């Protein structure tokens, strides 16, 4: 169950160019959050940014009662967040949304992340009981790489692709997935990142008949299921289609259910 909380910021630090880590104190969220869930933040009192901003939970420290968010500075909201200081309080709604399915039957998993989509996957790796965990991450170029060490530690292998080849493999992260999918015999693929990437991952998983969950982004009015603005088209059991809510019915979906525009 999500709650409306005023939480204290422990620290805000630059992780890499344009990306910040915010550590927030919260017994409630650190105890209750599950991988794939997000929080919805009112970046300021007043109207400078009116709506909340959704940010995925990247890791939790239950013992210390805190959790980490990683966010990229994009517009007014994330700019305000990046300017917050230790000791400031922020207005947070969370944890929100449907989390990844971490069935213990999934013994061999792949996580496929692109850009700012990698953050919920770190939390997932932390919580997953799988035996083999392979991480495939894609970035625009070497300057955008974050959390490399953390992903390396939390998985059995980490491979990075960059669009411009400035680090790791040059090309798409999905190329690496495609290369390994036969040999690795994954029970489950988890993916989060830009839509073209998710579409490709979905195709690969389908072709090889591997279970796959993807986490989607959509512009949100409320983040908790009330306004129906965050629509995503999915297949119905009757073979038709319907709009469901990314914030409440997702953000994590079984890839086969999603109809990409």
């Amino acid at each position: 169950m999500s709650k409306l909380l005023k939480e204290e910021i422990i620290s805000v630090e630059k992780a890499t160019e344009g990306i910040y880590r915010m550590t927030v104190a919260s017994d409630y969220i650190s105890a209750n959050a599950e991988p794939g869930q997000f929080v919805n933040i009112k970046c300021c009192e007043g109207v400078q940014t009116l709506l909340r901003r959704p940010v995925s939970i990247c890791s939790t420290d239950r013992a210390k009662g805190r959790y980490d968010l990683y966010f990229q500075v994009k517009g007014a909201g994330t700019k305000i967040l990046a300017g917050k200081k230790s000791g400031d309080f922020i207005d947070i709604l969370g944890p929100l949304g449907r989390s990844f399915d971490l069935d213990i039957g999934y013994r061999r998993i792949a996580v496929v992340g692109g850009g700012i989509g990698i953050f919920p996957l770190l939390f997932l790796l932390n919580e997953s009981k799988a035996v083999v965990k392979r991480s495939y991450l894609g970035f625009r170029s070497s300057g955008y790489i974050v959390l490399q060490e953390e992903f390396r530690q939390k998985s059995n292998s980490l491979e990075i692709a960059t669009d411009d080849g400035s680090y790791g493999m040059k090309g798409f992260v999905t190329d690496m997935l495609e290369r390994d999918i036969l040999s690795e015999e994954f029970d489950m693929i988890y993916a989060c990142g830009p839509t073209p990437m998710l579409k490709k991952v979905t195709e690969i998983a389908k072709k090889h008949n591997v279970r796959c969950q993807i986490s989607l982004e959509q512009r949100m009015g409320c983040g908790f299921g009330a306004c129906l603005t965050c629509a995503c088209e999915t297949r119905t059991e009757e073979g038709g289609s319907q709009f469901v809510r990314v914030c409440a019915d997702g953000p994590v979906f079984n890839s086969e259910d999603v109809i990409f525009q």
Partner: protein
Amino acid sequence: MSNIDLSVDICGIKMKNPVIAASGTFGFGREHAGYVDLNRIGGISVKGLTLEPRAGNKPPRVAETPAGMLNSVGLQNPGVRSFIREEIPFLRQYSTAIIANIAGNTTEEYCEMAEILSDADIDAVELNVSCPNVKAGCVAFGNTPQGIAEITSLVRKYCNKPLIVKLTPNVTSIADIAKAAEDAGADALSLINTLLGMAIDIETRRPILANNTGGLSGPAVKPVAVRMVYEVCQTVKIPVIGMGGIFSGKDAVEFMLAGASAVMVGTACLVYPDACIKVCEGIEEYMRRHGFERTADITGKLVLNT
């Protein structure tokens, strides 16, 4: 200690306070129930209903604008019958007024819905004749005095509940439209619905909303809404429910001074799930500070500058 009475009776809709959740921003109350006690809210105008279920528009359906937001949900809803079956029993667990907000493509659809709802356990029907986010029907009715008179008098025949007509701000003279609705049998009016707007992503050179245009709501529209509520209250005798950008008790008091008997809170309910409660507490605090005991003491008490 406190002898402040916040209750209101709007054309027979009895509410414990004058703060109502605005249609489309509160779903059917289920989500908000996780954050607030629905018993403390005067009433809930549910997500706009249509005769048949509607899928709504393609996403993106929301864009933030300066001090406001555009939405183009397009009346996604499970249909009026499913509402009666699935949602009323849930809502009736709480002591809060239920207002069924309805929209149709044709006058027949409106009438059929009104008829169906006449047997349902609701407190009022709110006629949405001004949804800017659907192509056919709906919006057209609300734009002219003739249109609104026609739809209101027809629906009136089929509707045995208090009938609230919701007005669009996208018109030259909202007072004329209000008058037409009153004359045609509306029991109350609610305003404003959203202002039609557009936001453009200059990088992709496309409108942000998949639907291209959407309805503007939030604090940005408040001055327009207050002005319109004032104009309408000068023109009609039936009660008026004011809305548009209410985020605080102070905002609500502006509308009430301008003549509103009750207020609806929309966008604020998306940002703050507990917005209705906060607005209500703010009204009470204002009344206490000024020694008012009944909401009628503030409704319409604006003094014009001369």
